[in-house]
């Protein structure tokens, strides 16, 4: 009888200490209401889900990331959704996958844990952030559209309102925020958890019949081919490699894990060249 009780106690104890691993996907700039379909697409999300022992432990965040990272509609919304997800699913190991400006929003949470009393409990459960193409040092494209917008405003007419997430991703703004409000870049204290960058290094759009050019949408690649003119020779069409690798540490540069294929800024959030399998495999490690 005593032996049975002991076994029961051990079983209960082991079930209580079993690590429930979860993954949360945080999108980039945009006010998303269906990031599953509109931002990541099913192939990517379901591919990542396959890496979980409990497939229910996956969250696709939907927030208004047209705002400054610190805005309640951005980091506040992300913190709210992560907190609910952790509580409802009893998550004790959380892997956060971000894309583009989503990396800045999560880095705000990691860098400013006292800004919101929900942050420490989230940080405590995050084991790593896989930051796909994070705009950690901003992008000259944001400068190009915001400078024009300011010029237009100065003329007294406005061509198109530019959202604060774009404003925030100007190179000078991110340089200032990195020095004053964010951690994890060169010369600044380290983040409390690993922040691992996935770096896209080129854009190809010359051949509409090539998977390299068409995966993720050929039309999107065409635009990236032009935007790349604002960027360094190593870029994903939206951000320079130096920006994608400015915070945390580089996990991998695209071609190191994708059989030589490069990932443009749209391809890196889609299931192109094995991205979903790479991320799924990382959940198990």
């Amino acid at each position, binding site marked *: 009888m005593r032996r049975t009780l002991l076994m029961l106690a051990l079983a209960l104890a082991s079930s209580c200490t079993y690590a429930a691993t979860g993954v949360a996907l945080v999108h980039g700039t945009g006010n998303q209401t269906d990031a599953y379909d509109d931002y990541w697409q099913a192939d990517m999300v379901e591919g990542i889900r396959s890496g979980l022992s409990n497939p229910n432990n996956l969250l696709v965040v939907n927030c208004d990331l047209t705002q400054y990272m610190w*805005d309640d509609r951005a980091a506040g919304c992300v913190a709210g959704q992560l907190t609910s997800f952790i509580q409802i699913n009893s998550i004790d190991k959380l892997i956060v996958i971000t894309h583009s400006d989503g990396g800045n929003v999560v880095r705000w949470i990691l860098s400013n844990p006292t800004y919101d009393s929900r942050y*420490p409990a989230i940080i405590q459960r995050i084991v790593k952030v896989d930051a796909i193409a994070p705009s950690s040092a901003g992008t000259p494209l944001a400068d190009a559209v915001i400078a024009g917008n*300011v010029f237009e405003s100065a*003329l007294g007419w406005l061509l*198109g309102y530019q959202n604060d997430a774009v404003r925030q991703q100007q190179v000078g703004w991110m340089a200032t925020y990195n020095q004053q409000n964010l951690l994890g870049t060169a010369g600044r*204290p380290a983040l409390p958890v690993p922040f691992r960058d996935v770096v896209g290094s080129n854009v190809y759009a010359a051949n509409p019949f090539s998977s390299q050019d068409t995966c993720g949408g050929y039309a999107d690649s065409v635009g990236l081919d032009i935007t790349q003119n604002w960027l360094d020779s190593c870029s994903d069409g939206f951000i320079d490699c130096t920006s994608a690798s400015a915070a945390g540490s580089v996990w991998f540069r695209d071609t190191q894990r994708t059989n030589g294929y490069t990932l443009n800024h749209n391809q890196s959030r889609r299931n192109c060249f094995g991205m979903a399998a790479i991320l799924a495999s990382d959940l198990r490690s």
Partner: protein
Amino acid sequence: MQRRMLFLALLTALISVPACAGTHALLPPQANDMVPTTLVARDTTVPAAAIAGVARPQIHAERQPVSINWAIPHDTALQTQPQSLARSSREYWLDATADELRQGIALPLSAPGAIIRISPSDTVNGRLTPEKVQLKLGRQSLGADQATSQLADATSMRAAGMSVPAASLVMRLKPELGSGMATLQASNASGRYVVHVFEPNSPFTVTARADRDDALLGQHVHLSVAMQNGSHARPLQSVGGFLRAPDGSTNTLDYHAQADGSYTADAIPTHASATPGLWEFHSFSVGDDGAGNLVHRDTTTVFSAAVPDARFDGNAETRRTANQGIDISIGVIAASTSRYAVSGVLYGRDGDGHMVPAAYAQSAAWLPVGNGKLVLHYDAANLHGVDAPYELHDLRLQDQPAIALIERRAVAMRFDSP
């Protein structure tokens, strides 16, 4: 009896730990530290109205005190002073009426392969199609289709993450067209247009740099604007521009020519912005390529300007906690009731005798006007491998709802025993 005495001795020692708490004066500020001298209460009312194009932010209102710390690698090379960023520009903007665009506007191009974006104010009637756009350069007069190697509309650019205005037309000129004074013409122009010219292949850049990237209201910020041809300086002919506050309000700047051909401007932000964000210098410059051809460049430089509504009072107390961690209680004087955060990196001596960074701590609480304290706590586990003496580096004070850095000290304290 002996055991009882030992117990009493231990108890006395434990009880006496707080009594051993050290009182310290913060080290004098270093040359590049940012330290408020006069405090000003911040207007904490929510801005009632936004300037066109500037959204009203939703600031998180947190009332619970929060404290956290973690170990950082001992080999981290921490920057002692923030560095301002110099931004180089190869682009410029101009505006044109429909009449001007129908007749043709002059676009100085300093290198082949320029990218030209045309954005109409009237996104319906003003939309331009490539076949209606004509480019003259030298003896060549070509339609946009023939003159360009790449063409994209707003949809393509936005899909690529570049959120250009609706109905924009973007074209990259064929490199073989060369450079010089181009004329851009659109026969069906309507309304007004902004034309953005970017010259990725040009050797001519204009760089703008502020002398600091953080400031307090009332402090002076100095801007330098200089032109380069590759690595060689070139004189500028003229520079104009304005200072833009985060709430969108602007002030025209006076630029002064310098003997080396550069220009400078000075600004003292004196009014608190109604919304958080950064201040921007926008400079519009004209130079030439040395052969009489004009070179236009627009630049943007940013810095923060915080309301100095709190400061460290200069005193701190250190204490070894019961779990062998270290508490550093920092005195703060607040002129506004707000949520303030203090952060700092604790250095200690490692086994080789070097001072190395050991742990980062951050603590925030709501403080009323007057004198208060914020406590940085460092867990013993996060101080593994280092011992006394200790130094507190990169001590910062932030007004969290203002997203504002209001005090920063590179090295704030040295102490042997907590």
